């Protein structure tokens, strides 16, 4: 029996690492699979090529399967996310000029979300007063973790992301050039494109995803519901292979090998030295400042691969908050059911790897690492707090959405 070919699309970013490692380190082969990884240029292509069956699965923005099922996208294919590909990994970088203004307004050192947010608020207020144009900030896609964490951070800092700044879409790899050329003033993107700006001396990383919301979800493995129902054994084998690859990727002993693997011209095409920054959390913030962030990018620990339905519902709450989706009990149910912890749990049963027994949790409830009982052993979660101290209880979705509609005063 030969290997079963599986075609998987990915966008060249650090968190595609677990898929690339699954192929390169033999985890896929051990499950009888041959991964054909196809590099894609845009998230729209990823979404559409999964929908029409060119890709069996893909590296996807975590909110993307939700937006497909909520009817926000061109194609009607039903999508699911049976697994997450890691926690954290993004950061917000601004131009040197904006950083200079933020620094004078009290920002830095480090990447504290509160401090940076308050400084940015002062900068924006000063710019409005002297008639400077609004700051233009880029994210990678309207339905992306980047867009939601940036807006969440701005809003909690007293900045209205709809009026006080302009938020535009720029592909990840183009963002450093756009920043250098002055077309944008800052961006929220996944690695390596914050480190790239620091290395080029064109910007300063002001806060990280892990500082805005600790242990927050980023990419998922997305596929069509139809495909998952048709090939349950294949899907199970894929989830096991990718989970083993995630564990391998999260092991500090393998980081250098992983960085070299990803650096290749046909993969990310970014130097392994820059990739090591994000893998180790030893960040180069820019302007000569370095900072060690312990939970910058987590490929496996803290149940990083578990598709929490509370994550799906938080993304849904943000879609409602920013006017992309309308809130109804039916829509909330569609969102929650897009994430499939049941499939993940079933695939990993008997592997000796701990998987949470609950499908959802209160986000922001854990202030320190907490052990919990899980299928297959003990598991340590969190801390998972939002920087502004709020919590998200998925059982109290209506109240959360109502509270979020109170935007900062102008």
């Amino acid at each position, binding site marked *: 029996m030969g290997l079963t070919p599986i075609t998987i699309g990915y966008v060249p970013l650090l968190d595609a690492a677990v898929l690339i490692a699954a192929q390169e380190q033999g985890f896929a082969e051990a499950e009888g699979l041959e991964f054909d990884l196809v590099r894609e*240029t*845009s*998230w*729209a*292509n990823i979404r*559409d*090529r999964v929908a*029409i*069956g*060119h890709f069996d699965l893909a590296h996807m923005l975590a909110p993307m399967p939700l937006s497909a099922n909520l*009817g926000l996208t*061109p*194609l*009607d294919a039903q999508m699911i996310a049976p697994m997450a590909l890691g926690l954290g990994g993004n950061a917000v970088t601004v131009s040197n000029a904006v950083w200079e203004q933020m620094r004078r307004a009290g920002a830095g050192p480090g990447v504290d979300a509160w401090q940076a947010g308050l400084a940015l608020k002062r900068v924006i207020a000063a710019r409005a007063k002297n008639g400077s144009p609004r700051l233009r900030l880029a994210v*990678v*896609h*309207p339905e992306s973790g980047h867009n939601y964490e940036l807006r969440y951070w701005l809003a909690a800092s007293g900045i209205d992301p709809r009026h006080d700044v302009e938020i*535009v*879409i*720029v*592909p990840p*790899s*183009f963002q450093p050039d756009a920043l250098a050329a002055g*077309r944008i003033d800052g961006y929220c993107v996944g690695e390596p494109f914050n480190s790239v700006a620091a290395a080029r001396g064109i910007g300063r990383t002001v806060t990280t995803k892990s500082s805005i919301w600790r242990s927050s979800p980023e990419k998922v493995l997305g596929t069509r519901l139809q495909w998952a129902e048709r090939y349950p054994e294949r899907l199970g084998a894929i989830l096991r292979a990718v989970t083993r690859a995630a564990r391998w990727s999260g092991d500090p002993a393998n980081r250098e090998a992983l960085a070299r693997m990803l650096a290749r011209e046909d993969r990310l095409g970014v130097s392994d030295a820059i990739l090591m920054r994000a893998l180790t959390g030893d960040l180069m913030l820019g302007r000569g400042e370095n900072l060690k962030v312990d939970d910058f990018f987590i490929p496996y620990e803290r149940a990083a691969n578990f598709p929490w339905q509370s994550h799906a519902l938080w993304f849904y709450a943000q879609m409602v908050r920013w006017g992309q989706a309308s809130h109804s009990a039916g829509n909330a149910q569609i969102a929650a059911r897009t994430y499939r912890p049941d499939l993940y749990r079933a695939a990993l049963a008997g592997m000796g790897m701990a998987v949470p027994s609950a499908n959802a949790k209160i986000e922001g409830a854990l202030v320190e690492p907490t052990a919990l009982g899980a299928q297959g052993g003990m598991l340590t979660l969190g801390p998972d707090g939002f920087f502004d101290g709020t919590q998200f209880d998925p059982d109290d979705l209506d109240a959360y959405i109502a509270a979020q509609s109170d935007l900062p005063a102008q």
Partner: protein
Amino acid sequence: MPQTLSILVVDDNRIRASIIEDGLREAGHAHVHVITEINEVAARIGEIAPDVVIIDLENPNRDMLEHFFALSRALQRPIAMFVDKADPGSIEAAVDAGVSAYVVDGLRKERVKPILDMAISRFRAFSRLREELAEAKSELENRKAIEKAKGILMRTRGLSEDEAYALLRRTAMNQNRKIAEIAQSLITAAGLLEP
């Protein structure tokens, strides 16, 4: 009537864009707009109000473009052209051709299909043109290399032009390689031996 459709072609490759544009015009579509610079789309989307947008799938700015459409409400719910549910074959063909087109919701398939077909065939024509050009270019370079290698052999070994060519050809046959490759190796080697 197809003539009433406003078609927007977004392509940073000017030559390809003009080939697609010509094809659409020849097919009787009068309202064809071509934009080669993505940042221009945001400014002009309102005035063009396209019924159909044709964009290369490989364009990484697709995400940006979708966002412009959503912002301007120019395309309420863009449908990828290759999403003809009844006909997965044409979807595959469109994607293979690298064409991704967006049409407004409700635009009937009969009106859209000729545009898609045209875009695909022009896209393929462009690909063919590019391949032929690349072939012609490499052919010219090969000929230049062979001329140069002959010159080196004539100078260093005192051979006639015919003898030099025969030697190159014989060596290529013996080594089961192309004459141009042998010529290139010879030029490289001669370069290394120069004082």
